[in-house]
């Protein structure tokens, strides 16, 4: 830096949290400001404080000063810059923004001058810029007077220069008004990017914001690239004639002393009975729960643990938080909503006794410190899983109990990914939507923008706009696009939340959302309550109800018989379609290798098929040791207590933390930082800084380098996604419960699984086929017998129950239509098709859909005959009296089985009559194509050709570009492994085919069979099975 240059403070910097306007992140702005040697930087995003936490964290890290503020849009379409001077001002700014946001449609904010004046305390106002009242010829009159009165000496006239011709005249007006109203001048530029290389991106973002192309954007674009963060020299040159105005930026910076570190947060205190303190109430509830959990006799170890935990809770003053969580759980219990705490809360005996979690941490020997510690003094993090379709009831309960001023949901920032970036930037560049659509289809979620992928879509990436697209897309990846709602995170406060952070309307009705995401909340150490939806809990609740109603068995999570041998045998066979957490292709491939025999094995199974253990190379050593093919040893004796449970191989997050403390001499504080860095999902770099420290310290302690590096790789893997033991245990409990139901009550299991959809891994068609393969009689939807949901009905002479498909699976039919059918059927049963049409009044498409799905088979001999009747009846005016369809009933040819299955799939995406390939089997056999069952019995290294329906395509980040496909036929599944080279060669078929042929070699390991593809092809048959949807690339 030139010593002669006068320093200044850029007070008007907009980051990319000024959505689709700013072209740099808050971190980039802070870093550049620091690097330029500026004393501070003012972050003033448009109508919000979305980026302040990110900026604050970076500034704290660098030891740089961050001034907070916002550019406020007024109701006369002008704007004003407000900077926070002190805590009161921060609260006022939050309140003002909340008002403006909540009255306007989502994404907009409008406040009046009067409201600005009412919230002036603790704020500084900078008035200027092209769209400001002060730069116009007309006297701002009353507005200026009122601002002057409200802000007094905290109101400044802002002199802005960007080398634009129009600024000359505007500056003359501003100077005249400033003189008239005695406003001190302060110099500034509108900073939209940290470096001018981002100016092109800023132009493109502007186009996206206005929905125009670069060619038609006109003066919506900035005329030049002079909106970067200026060095002191350039700033001085720009304002060479106004040194006082430059000097004043420093004076303003001095005045703004507020920092986010000053935020003090209190959790809402509960209303307590009989003058009890909240802590007394917590203790009482805790012991009451403990007596219930341990049938009146609370073991000493549990009592000790509870006391220990209560001490920590009291010391940290967190009792209110626990009472709130308990209140939510109570609400769920009272309303028959199944819920269960997950995450590190399962390490707490208090949570177990309060009914928040279902895992006994004392029995499982789980570490409470992972959940709460005085040293860390961090807010506890309890995630409560709630059955997914009843979560809204719980959310509205929280709103009603704490009020909308004290409770708001945490935001989720929707960011640009490669597909959205290609679509939106391409549109701004004037590329046709069709071409962009084609290009986007070839892009993967995780790949970014690879020009070779675009070439696959026949795109010339060297041509003008595509070349620019390839240049710009990487710049915009991860940029915020807009706010949405976090799946279930709530911020609750004793003071109104709107004094901590602005609250705005969410697009979803009856929801309000704060301007920060969960990382921001965590970074500031604020309390968050996570109410998450979980389909498996819904399924369990439905299954328990069915058991009670049809089998007279009262069952809940706690009373499911533990360690059931038949259940574990089923799990060991990987017969787990529909079982929570262990139904995926990868889990199914692991199950026969691990062969879980008890609950803890299941905990390991849940957590071992994760990027952490896989990338850390922990899976195979663990399996070898478990199968006694390798000796269990420890790299150092000090690690035995840490790793004993998992045979010397670290699998859980807690073990990694303890390992760092024991083997690498990490202090608890460092270990905690390690945990945070592990949890910072996908943010590369933060884990890397531990590498040298961990490995060298472990080696100093006598641990071999190879093990040390393996541990570090696993830690890096946890950066992607890794489970703490307590979390795995919570999930394993649900896995076991669903497995047990599947093993002993399959009809109820499949019925509840179908009724809890959408959830899990498999389509309705696959679930129905799996049920049929397990001898469950599945009956098609029927207007005389089906309810909205699937039901159990007597299987007739065979005894037991059959599964009747619900009308919810008939396309085009909605719940209201079902209600019409139900009320008409309640009055009396339908006599014939005409009676049904007349009394339900359903529209023609819905009637035809019901017919196509076979739902009229009880009322008409064939679907063609009922179709003929419906075509004659539907759409006619309804009469109270029965009217027969016009004309006689001609004879129609009967539908073949293949046609029936085809009709079923077209109308309901599944068939209870058979698999689409079952009718083509003879043709497939003639081409020497085996079914899945036969293929899975062939020996290792057999060369095979196989054809099946693609139900899933996956490319895990841990698989070095290998794509896994699951193909299905009437006898089961075939797992196909497609190497990167093969996938690239057959990319179009691999990505688009629904019915796929594979040639390759079998890889057989025990009962685990994979078909390693050499080529992919489209099978040629006389007719093709109906095109089915697959779940791709999750």
């Amino acid at each position, binding site marked *: 830096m030139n010593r002669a240059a006068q320093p200044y403070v850029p007070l008007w910097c907009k980051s990319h949290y000024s959505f689709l306007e700013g072209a740099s992140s808050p971190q980039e702005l802070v870093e550049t400001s620091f690097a330029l040697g500026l004393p501070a930087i003012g972050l003033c995003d448009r109508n919000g404080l979305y980026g302040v936490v990110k900026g604050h964290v970076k500034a704290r890290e660098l030891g740089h000063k961050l001034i907070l503020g916002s550019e406020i849009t007024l109701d006369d379409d002008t704007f004003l810059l407000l900077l926070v001077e002190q805590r009161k001002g921060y609260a006022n700014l939050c309140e003002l923004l909340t008002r403006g946001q909540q009255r306007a449609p989502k994404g907009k904010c409008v406040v009046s001058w009067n409201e600005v004046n009412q919230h002036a305390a603790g704020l500084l106002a900078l008035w200027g810029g092209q769209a400001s009242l002060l730069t116009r010829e007309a006297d701002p009159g009353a507005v200026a007077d009122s601002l002057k009165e409200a802000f007094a000496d905290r109101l400044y006239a802002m002199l802005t220069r960007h080398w634009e*011709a129009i600024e000359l005249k505007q500056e003359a007006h501003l100077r005249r008004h400033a003189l008239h109203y005695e406003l001190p001048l302060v110099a500034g530029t509108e900073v939209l990017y940290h470096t001018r290389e981002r100016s092109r991106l800023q132009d493109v973002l502007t186009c996206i914001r206005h929905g125009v192309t670069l060619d038609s954007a*006109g003066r919506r674009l900035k005329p*030049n690239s002079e909106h970067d963060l200026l060095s002191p020299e350039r700033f001085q040159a720009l304002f060479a004639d106004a040194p006082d105005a430059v000097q004043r930026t420093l004076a303003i910076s001095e005045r703004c002393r507020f920092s986010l570190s000053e935020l003090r947060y209190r959790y809402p205190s509960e209303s307590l009975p009989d003058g009890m303190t909240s802590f007394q109430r917590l203790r009482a509830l805790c012991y009451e729960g403990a007596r219930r959990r341990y049938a009146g006799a609370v073991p000493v170890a549990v009592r000790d643990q509870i006391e220990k935990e209560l001490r920590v809770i009291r010391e940290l003053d967190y009792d209110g938080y626990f009472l709130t969580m308990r209140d939510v759980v109570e609400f769920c219990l009272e309303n028959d909503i199944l819920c269960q705490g997950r995450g590190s809360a399962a390490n707490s005996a208090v949570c177990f006794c309060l009914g928040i979690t279902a895992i006994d941490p004392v029995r499982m020997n789980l570490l409470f410190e992972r959940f709460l510690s005085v040293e860390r003094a961090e807010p506890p993090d309890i995630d409560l899983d709630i059955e997914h379709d009843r979560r809204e009831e719980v959310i509205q309960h929280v709103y009603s109990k704490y009020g909308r001023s004290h409770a708001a949901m945490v935001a989720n920032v929707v960011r640009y990914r490669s597909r959205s970036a290609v679509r939106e930037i391409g549109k701004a560049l004037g590329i046709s939507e*069709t071409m962009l*659509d*084609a290009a986007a289809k070839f892009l993967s979620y995780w790949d970014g923008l690879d020009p070779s992928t675009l070439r696959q879509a026949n795109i010339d990436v060297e041509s003008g706009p595509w070349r620019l697209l390839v240049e710009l897309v990487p710049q915009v990846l991860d940029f915020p696009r807009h706010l949405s709602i976090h799946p279930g995170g709530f911020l609750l406060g004793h003071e109104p939340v709107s004094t901590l952070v602005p609250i705005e309307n969410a697009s979803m009705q009856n929801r309000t959302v704060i301007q920060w995401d969960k990382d921001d909340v965590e970074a500031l150490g604020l309390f968050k309550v996570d109410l998450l939806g979980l389909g498996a809990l819904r399924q369990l609740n439905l299954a328990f109800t069915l058991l009670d109603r049809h089998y007279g068995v009262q069952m809940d999570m706690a009373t499911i018989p533990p360690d059931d041998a038949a259940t574990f045998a089923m799990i060991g066979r990987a017969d787990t379609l529909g079982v929570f957490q262990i139904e995926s292709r990868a889990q199914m491939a692991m199950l026969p290798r691990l062969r879980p025999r008890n609950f803890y094995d299941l905990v390991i199974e849940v957590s071992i098929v994760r990027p952490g253990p896989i990338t850390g190379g922990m899976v195979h050593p663990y399996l070898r040791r478990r199968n006694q093919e390798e000796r269990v040893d420890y790299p150092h004796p000090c690690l035995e207590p840490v790793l004993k449970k998992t045979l010397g191989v670290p699998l859980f997050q807690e073990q990694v933390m303890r390992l760092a403390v024991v083997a690498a001499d990490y202090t608890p504080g460092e270990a905690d930082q390690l945990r945070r860095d592990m949890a910072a999902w996908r943010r590369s770099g933060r884990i890397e800084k531990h590498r040298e420290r961990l490995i060298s310290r472990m080696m100093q302690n006598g641990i071999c380098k190879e093990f040390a590096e393996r541990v570090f790789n696993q830690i890096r893997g946890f950066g992607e996604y890794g489970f703490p033991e307590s979390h795995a245990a919570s999930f394993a409990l649900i896995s076991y419960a669903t497995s047990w139901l599947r093993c002993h009550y399959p009809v109820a299991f499949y019925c509840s699984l179908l009724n809890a959809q959408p959830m899990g891994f498999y389509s309705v068609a696959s679930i129905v086929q799996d049920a049929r393969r397990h001898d469950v009689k599945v009956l098609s939807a029927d207007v005389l017998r089906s309810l909205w949901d699937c039901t159990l009905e007597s299987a007739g002479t065979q005894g037991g129950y059959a599964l009747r498909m619900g009308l919810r699976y008939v396309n085009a039919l909605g719940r209201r239509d079902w209600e019409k059918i139900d009320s008409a059927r309640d009055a009396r049963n339908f006599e014939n098709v005409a009676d049904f049409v007349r009394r339900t009044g359903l529209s023609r498409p819905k009637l035809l859909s019901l017919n196509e799905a076979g739902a009229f088979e009880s009322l008409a001999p064939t679907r063609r005959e009922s*179709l003929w009747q419906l*075509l004659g009846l539907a759409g006619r005016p309804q009469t109270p009296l029965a009217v027969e369809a016009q004309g*006689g009933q001609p004879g129609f040819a009967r539908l073949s089985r293949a046609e029936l299955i085809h009709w079923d799939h077209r109308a309901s995406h599944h068939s209870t009559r058979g698999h689409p390939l079952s009718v083509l089997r003879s043709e497939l056999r003639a081409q020497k194509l085996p079914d899945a069952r036969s293929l899975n019995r062939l020996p290792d290294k057999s060369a095979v050709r196989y054809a099946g329906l693609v139900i899933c395509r996956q490319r895990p980040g841990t698989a070095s570009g290998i794509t896994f496909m699951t193909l299905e036929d009437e006898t089961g599944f075939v797992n196909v492994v497609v190497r990167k080279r093969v996938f690239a060669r057959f990319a179009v078929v691999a990505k*688009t085919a629904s019915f796929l042929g594979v040639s390759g070699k079998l890889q057989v390991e025990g009962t685990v069979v994979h078909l390693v593809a050499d080529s992919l092809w489209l099978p040629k048959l006389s007719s093709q099975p109906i095109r089915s949807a697959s779940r791709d690339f999750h």
Partner: protein
Amino acid sequence: MACVDVPALPLQLLLRKKPHWSSDPVAVVAEVKPLARILWVTEQARHHGIVPGLRYAAGLSLSPRLKAGSVSNEEIGHCVERLTLELRAFSPGIEPATDPPGIFWLDATGLLRLHSSLYVWAQRLRSNLQKLGFTSSVAIGFSRLGTYAASKTNPRSITYFASEASERHSLLKTPLENLSISTEILHHLNHLGIATIGDFLPFSNSDLVARFGKDLGLLHHLAGGKAWDPLIPEPELEPVQAHVNLEPPEHDNHRLLFSIKRQLNPLLRILRHRHEAAVELALCFKLERHSLRHEYLRTAAPTLDAAQLVDLVRLRLDRAPLPAAVIEIRLEVLGQRVFPEQLCLFQDVNRHSFSAANRALARIRAEFGEQSVCYARLTDAHLPEARFIQKPLVRLQAPQQKSHEVRTRQLVRRFFVKPKLLSTITAEPVDASSELLTGGPHIFDGGWWHRLITREYYFLQDKDDNLYWCFYDGYRKQWFAHGRVE
């Protein structure tokens, strides 16, 4: 009766426009957007599973090589008109179908006197269409439905029915999907297992009408021979034209104008009978020892007033006199359909009306050329020369009332037509630190998505106190004067 089918006419039109697409799957779409419906597809596209009714995006996902374009109704209409004209050489009685486009019914009666056989006639017809770049099929038979079904069932061929019985036999085997039945009805018939006309004849007509509407009922009647659908040929409209031979050759403009006026009156009467009014007059002068001279004149509004047209001719001839005496004049008046009340409006009485002004502008155009009447439209751009464009003024609009802004005195910049090198304006060497420069720089850099333009604007006052508006072009690294300042 004969049916000529130019199958998938919009698709053929598209492929004529884009011959290099012929090796790829091609589709005609309603508009070139991902969610637009596919209307027509080539066989190659069908091989990839792309069928009409799909969204373009869905088609692309089936074959990334799919090429698509849209064909406007206007283009189709023009093509049908042109083909009708071509087919008139083969039969005087032609009825083009409106939906689907590309079907023509021809009256083939009596043609055996001109051609050795109707098959030969059909061959000539097909090869004529082939020369124009269209593939077609022809069916010659006894009924509209029979020939239509045969032309659709046997694409790119000629079908000749010697007897009504053979036509009927063929008709009964015709798949319903070959007839232009709506997709929804076809879907239901398919579901009922009704695939051919033969399958569908046993049903009662009233049952079919109740379920599928009158059109299918009519088809059922026609197929069953219970209804007759005769050919309704489209009358041929003669162009409204006239010509006059001048003997001796005429070189006097006044006499020429009188000659033209005499010819115009009967032409305008023809237009009046057709409920049309003149919008354009095309003149072709055959000159002594000179090549032909063509003139086109547009009227201010549709008119039947010969005096207005003659006035426009006079202005054009005054401005661009004919170089030699005229031997022959050909006139053609292009009409536009108008309603009687519209015609009344042309009888203008107010000399200061907009129509009078528009007529005046038409006269200026007639005198000085079509591009002579323009106005400046302000545009939304940063580059000074891009802030306005000259647009031809077609019709005068009433001025809009503007607010009375008090304007301060401003510098007026007169643009040069093209920026001039500053060295051609002033001999003084100029750089950014030159004392001659004032009031800058005002920086413009943009347009990077086409070609980056970087300019730094200043005012330059030379020694004679002339004030120029100049800029340094960062791309060409040169100084230019963009205008003079007043």
